[in-house]
């Protein structure tokens, strides 16, 4: 019965979404309060009904209801409960339901919390949000119903892909979707503004918290996915430039640009049409990600089952939403410019450079990701793949100047900055950064010049961020208690920026350390073999069979010594899941701040050798790799800190924005 309730609830949600698509926006056109306010209730109704559907599907998974096709295909009665729950969004249909659920959550949040938004803007925004709802609800109901039944029901399910049975990955899609879909609100705001034909500071102030929240989730989602790849895939890498990784990274890059350009729109009234374009682009790239993952368009390890019919439907949705919003943009944007003038050397100028670099980087990633498709279409069937060499060679040089400008930017004042004065302040930062890099060089020796250049830039960023923060609270200029008082009075968003920018510097250290100074050995080991790597002596004592809840594993044992002292035992596993008939690697990691010693067991050396205990072992030492996760955490914390800023707090600046809404942008 429950699945039918879920199915029915989706139908009701669609009905509400259809009403919400028309009534509020019409009400805004004829200035009818009642019609506009109907969005309030329909948005809440949608989230309730989609929530019921989601709960119904989850309960089918929890109860292992094998009359539901989706449960049969993605679950198994032997699976641990956590993964039964997580399997709810493990399939195409289930993840789509989660997608729509989050979409309606954001719609309801705008309805509930957006009291400070001008009523007409809010009504239009909610209508646009409902258009997206209609698109995805029909997609789900017509092509991908998660509640389809099967008769006769099988005795047990086929199990979820074992690679995906992992705590990190169970949380990865919800976070990523909160990010992707969170940008839908920003998109709806942008389209509403285009329909209205004006953008002002108040608009930018409404948009920023939503963009920031979505960005925080997306950052956390990407970092979690990357962390999962690091310890689960067994290759010791955390980023592979796989199409599916790229499609999550592009909205992040655009969203980052959007956060910064919205500041200019809010504070200086400039970059209006650019901010609108970024808002549209960010969500368009999120939709593109949804499309690529589900259409089988590109080769990827992450892709869902290929179904051209579904692909065609999403492409239609894409054409309507992206094509429609771009057409609207082409029509309205030219009338929208104007606003604060500024000199090239100014805070605005710095943020412009930031935006240009981020946009170029996004374009590069997009081009690299889609190039195999372009190439195949143009040559009529030839295939090629674009891998890490392209992305590393193109993306890194584009981003390095950004890191430099990030150090400089916060020192520039709005409108017109004094480069000499800023240079004076940054002189010591530059000297200290060079000194610190030389110290690193003296300690490490060896390695490419580019590695040290990136380290220099990361130090530059870190120290200039700290310098700027110290300058704001006048640390060392005034008494400590006075500096503390100033720090407390500083807006949260300023602290947020400091934390996030410092987080990026930390992340860069991890990125460089773990890729440039990585040591890697791939070799055959027999019991008793000794390997030395990066100053560690590792002894392989053998492998034995162990049994897990729904898998059987070969577990290797490695004793790790340094300078004759025993440090730890690593137990990498190779797991075989009989139901899903597939194998995963479970790497073993000795993690310290200095770096990770990472071991993973691959195939037995040959078919017979397995019995004799010889295995292929991959062992790596990745210096500073944990800085990546720490840096990512700081990025997220910085975002959250900024989100709690008084000015951004949703609902708080009611008085000011109500005035702002009265002032036309032109």
């Amino acid at each position: 019965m429950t699945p039918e309730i879920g199915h029915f609830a989706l139908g009701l949600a669609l009905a509400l979404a259809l009403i919400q698509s028309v009534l509020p926006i019409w009400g805004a056109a004829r200035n009818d309060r009642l019609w506009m306010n109907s969005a309030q209730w329909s948005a809440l109704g949608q989230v309730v009904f989609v929530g019921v559907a989601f709960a119904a599907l989850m309960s089918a998974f929890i109860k292992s209801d094998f009359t539901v096709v989706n449960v049969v295909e993605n679950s198994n009665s032997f699976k641990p409960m956590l993964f039964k729950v997580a399997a709810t969004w493990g399939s195409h249909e289930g993840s789509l339901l989660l997608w729509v659920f989050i979409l309606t959550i954001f719609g309801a949040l705008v309805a509930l919390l957006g009291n400070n938004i001008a009523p007409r803007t809010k009504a239009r925004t909610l209508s646009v949000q409902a258009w997206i709802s209609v698109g995805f609800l029909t997609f789900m109901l017509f092509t991908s119903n998660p509640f389809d039944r099967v008769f006769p029901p099988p005795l047990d399910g086929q199990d979820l892909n074992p690679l995906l049975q992992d705590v990190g990955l169970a949380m990865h899609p919800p976070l990523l979707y909160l990010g992707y879909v969170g940008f839908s609100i920003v998109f709806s705001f942008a389209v509403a503004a285009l329909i209205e034909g004006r953008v002002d500071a108040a608009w930018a102030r409404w948009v920023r918290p939503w963009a920031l929240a979505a960005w925080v989730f997306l950052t956390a989602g990407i970092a979690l996915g990357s962390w999962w790849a690091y310890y689960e895939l067994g290759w010791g890498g955390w980023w592979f430039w796989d199409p599916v990784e790229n499609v999550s990274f592009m909205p992040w890059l655009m969203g980052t640009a959007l956060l910064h350009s919205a500041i200019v729109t809010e504070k200086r009234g400039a970059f209006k049409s650019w901010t609108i374009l970024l808002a549209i682009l960010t969500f368009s790239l999120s939709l593109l990600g949804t499309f690529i993952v589900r259409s089988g368009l590109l080769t990827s390890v992450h892709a869902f089952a290929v179904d051209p019919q579904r692909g065609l439907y999403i492409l239609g949705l894409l054409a309507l939403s992206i094509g429609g919003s771009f057409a609207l943009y082409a029509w309205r944007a030219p009338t929208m410019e104007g606003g604060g003038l500024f000199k090239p050397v100014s805070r605005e100028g710095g943020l412009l450079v930031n935006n240009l670099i981020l946009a170029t980087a996004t374009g590069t990633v997009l081009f690299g990701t889609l190039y195999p498709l372009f190439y195949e279409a143009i040559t009529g069937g030839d295939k090629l793949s674009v891998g890490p060499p392209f992305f590393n060679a193109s993306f890194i040089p584009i981003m390095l100047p950004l890191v430099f400008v990030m150090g400089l930017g916060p020192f520039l004042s709005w409108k017109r900055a004094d480069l000499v004065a800023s240079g004076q302040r940054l002189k010591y930062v530059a000297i200290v950064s060079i000194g610190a890099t030389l110290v690193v060089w003296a300690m490490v020796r060896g390695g490419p010049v580019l590695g040290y250049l990136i380290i220099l830039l990361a130090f530059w960023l870190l120290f200039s961020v700290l310098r700027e923060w110290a300058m704001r609270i006048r640390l060392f200029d005034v008494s400590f208690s006075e500096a503390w008082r100033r720090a407390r009075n500083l807006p949260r968003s300023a602290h947020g920026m400091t934390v996030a920018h410092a987080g990026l510097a930390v992340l860069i250290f991890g990125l460089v350390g773990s890729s440039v100074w990585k040591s890697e050995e791939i070799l055959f080991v027999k019991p008793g073999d000794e390997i030395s790597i990066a100053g560690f002596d590792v002894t392989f004592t053998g492998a034995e069979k162990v049994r897990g809840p729904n898998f059987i594993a070969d577990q290797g044992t490695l004793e790790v010594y340094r300078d004759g002292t025993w440090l730890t035992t690593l137990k990498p596993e190779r797991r075989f899941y009989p139901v899903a008939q597939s194998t995963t690697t479970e790497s073993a990691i000795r993690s310290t701040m200095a770096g990770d010693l990472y071991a993973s067991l691959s195939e037995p050396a040959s078919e017979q050798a397995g019995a004799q205990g010889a295995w292929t072992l991959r062992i790596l030492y990745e210096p500073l790799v944990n800085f990546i996760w720490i840096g990512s955490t700081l990025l997220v914390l910085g975002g959250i800190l900024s989100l709690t800023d008084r000015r951004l707090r949703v609902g708080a600046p009611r008085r000011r924005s109500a005035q702002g809404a009265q002032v036309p942008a032109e």
Partner: protein
Amino acid sequence: MIRVFALAPLIIAVVVGGFFLWGLDPDRNPNALPSTLISQPAPEFSLDPVAGLDTPGLARADLLQGQGPVVVNVFASWCVPCRAEHAVLTRLVEDENQTLFGINYKDKPEDATRWLAELGNPYSRIGSDLSGRAGIEWGLAGVPETFIVGGDGTVLYRYVGPIVGEKAVGTFRDALEAARVWDKKQGQGS
């Protein structure tokens, strides 16, 4: 001018969308690898031996001299599955006296030498493809990859990935057997 700029996103989106529409053709499988070389003459190539190894190098002409079909295996010391596959290939040479040639793909000669010293060298010729040029000629998708070439230099079969496990070895042996029959017929015909 501003109008043109404002139109640019739409135009780009339409072009990209056109490619997407093309890409959704249900007959198109992005994972399938075209085997353009099958039934075609093997590509022209000439590779020096691996420095420091006694095994001679490999060129196209060498493919024609053997009795019956030859197996050309592309391997590298940095490739993990190649290790697993090595035993299968060695058995092929030892049990069936199959002629096996190797293309050592983008590998440092000293690494390759060490690798072969450790595992044994079943190859009667090995060409060192440091630049990856021959790999392009052969249309490699990755390493390892194994080709069966008829006595007249025609590429008869291509196996992508390691020939490890019962199923893969079976498939490959069947292909090799078919190639031997085919080759014998060709020999009688001419």
